[in-house]
């Protein structure tokens, strides 16, 4: 009786495991009844609205060109978290993340072939952005540039570089300003960064959280934000906020890549590549501009000269020796950020 019970329990356990495995294998194939291809785009938070529109025009384009239907599934979340989910097995055919470093992380896991950064134009960044300031209407504290952020009584909102990839851009933009201002005098640059982060009153875990803190909860005088987020906030709350472009900023290059391993498995390699390539088409580039990102196509960028301050002096991540070096120097445990933000 007891033995039988044990056997039954074992059988049941086996059945549960088997069911799990079967469910895993029986993943719906990527070709629907009518030959429709489905690809999944794993992206980060602020691109949600843009990709909703873009997917529509891409699906039309693909149907017209290849005579087969295609459906694009989107997924959004914090960039680092999204990258991790892909590494841990989320089924992404393409990734469009906030920074190259997150894609490099996926590359290291073997899912993306090396050399992805040169697969598409401009470091595989079809759109870029800059780091700007968002202030409340009237700009009471008269904030014009980075140097105004370290004044006494100015409260700054920016997320934690230790937990948000986007926040690293903010730090690096400030660092570049200090570098130019103090002509590379490291002690003075560190003092500047320390003063800046002393004025940070709330340090959220991510860019979205920081925007909520600034906009919804009314904290702080200035939010250091992505230009596209700032543009969308101004659009959403007309007459309440102003965008201030500092004299020096950093060119944020959100990168895109085909997750080769997954796309190969799905037989969607070509479609995935096409999906990213089409981001560079004139139509898509204009859409990019409308959603607050800077189009990588110079001619189309010029069409949006009213929307973007094109005179700002932008450095790039290459000025810091690439992401890996920047992480090592600034954000790793015991790096410069820890040093200037010590208790």
């Amino acid at each position, binding site marked *: *009786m007891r033995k039988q*019970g044990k056997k039954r329990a074992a059988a049941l356990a086996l059945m549960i495991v088997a069911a799990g495995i079967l469910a895993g294998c029986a993943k719906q194939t990527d070709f629907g009844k009518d030959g429709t291809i489905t690809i999944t785009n794993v992206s980060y938070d602020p691109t949600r609205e843009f990709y909703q529109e873009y997917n529509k025009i891409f699906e039309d384009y693909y149907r017209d060109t290849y005579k087969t239907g295609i459906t694009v599934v989107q997924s959004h979340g914090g960039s680092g978290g999204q990258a991790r989910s892909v590494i841990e097995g989320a089924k992404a055919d393409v990734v469009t993340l906030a920074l190259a470093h997150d894609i490099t992380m996926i590359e290291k896991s073997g899912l993306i072939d090396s050399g992805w950064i040169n697969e598409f134009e401009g470091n595989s960044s079809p759109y870029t952005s800059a780091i700007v300031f968002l202030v409340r209407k009237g700009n009471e504290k008269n904030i014009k540039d980075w140097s105004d952020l370290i004044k006494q009584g100015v409260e700054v909102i920016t997320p934690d570089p230790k*937990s948000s990839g986007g926040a690293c851009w903010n730090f690096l933009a400030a660092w570049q300003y200090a570098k130019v201002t103090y002509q590379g005098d490291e002690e003075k640059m560190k003092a500047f960064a320390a003063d800046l982060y002393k004025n940070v*009153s709330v340090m959220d875990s991510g860019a979205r959280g920081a925007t*909520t*803190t600034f906009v919804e909860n009314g*904290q702080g005088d200035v939010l250091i934000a992505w230009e596209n987020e700032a543009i969308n906030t101004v659009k959403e709350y007309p007459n309440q906020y102003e965008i201030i472009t500092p004299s020096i900023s950093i060119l944020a290059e959100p990168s895109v890549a085909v997750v080769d391993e997954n796309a190969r498995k799905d037989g969607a390699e070509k479609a995935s590549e096409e999906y990213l390539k089409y981001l560079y088409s004139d139509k898509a580039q204009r859409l990019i501009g409308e959603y607050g990102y800077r189009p990588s196509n110079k001619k189309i960028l010029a069409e949006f000269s009213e929307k973007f301050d094109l005179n700002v002096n932008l450095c790039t991540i290459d000025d810091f020796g690439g992401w890996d070096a920047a992480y090592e120097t600034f954000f790793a445990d015991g790096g410069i950020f820890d040093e200037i933000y010590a208790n």
Partner: protein
Amino acid sequence: MTKQLHRAGKSQRVIPGFGLSMGITLFMLSGIILIPLASVLVYSFQLSPREFFELITKTNVVNAFKTSLLCSLFAAFVNSIFGLILAWVLVRYEFPGKRIMDGIIELPFALPTAVAGITLSKLYSDTGVMGGFLGLLGIKAAYTKIGLTIALIFIGIPFVVRSIQPVLETLDPRYEEAAAILGAGKFHTFRKVILPELGPALLTGFGLAFARGVGEYGSVIYISGNNARNQTQVVSYVIMQKLNYVDYPGATAIALVMLFLSFLILLLVNMVQVHQAKRTSCL
């Protein structure tokens, strides 16, 4: 001989299905709880003992341990007091709207914690309703430890209420009557008769609320401000920092220490409980 003993042991079990249910129990316990916990152990052992020690004694990590443990303990303590009162009111008195009130208690369970966190931070920041009021009293709630503790009280209260309620419902009123007949005052009856009966349930509720608070992420990160300087970073936030840098060994090492500390505290709670149970059964 052993076979006979075996059979004798089996015949004592009146309810059938021990083998099957035990099998499921072991499967669930190992599959759902033990294997994930073991993998925490395996991951954190990728660090050398020195690295491990250096990591967990870092100022911000130690501060996070302190913040998480103290705020959770305090929140669980507050919840024990107010949860007891809530349960008492809901069980002992009849009033209109009682059912609805009873249902509301469980809302913190059902609400996604991030929603709770964003709502609380809005409410308790100095532009919010509660935050504005507290601001008049000179108290800054959101983005401080006070706000953090408020969030933990919010998510912990159902544990205490739901632990005490059933015990209170089945508490024989004759005990109280007897106490009254023997001349005990109301307070005396409560302290000497009711409270000892509720003790184990209260401790369970305390333990659950505390454990939930220690592991909480969603509802606290929005209201705490996560400021290393003001020591408002909780352990789960520091773990997330590590995860964001794909530092799995670091993240799991901190988790392991947290697990150990929580286990110690829960063990202590259980020991008090057992001690109390012994005392009441002797009486």
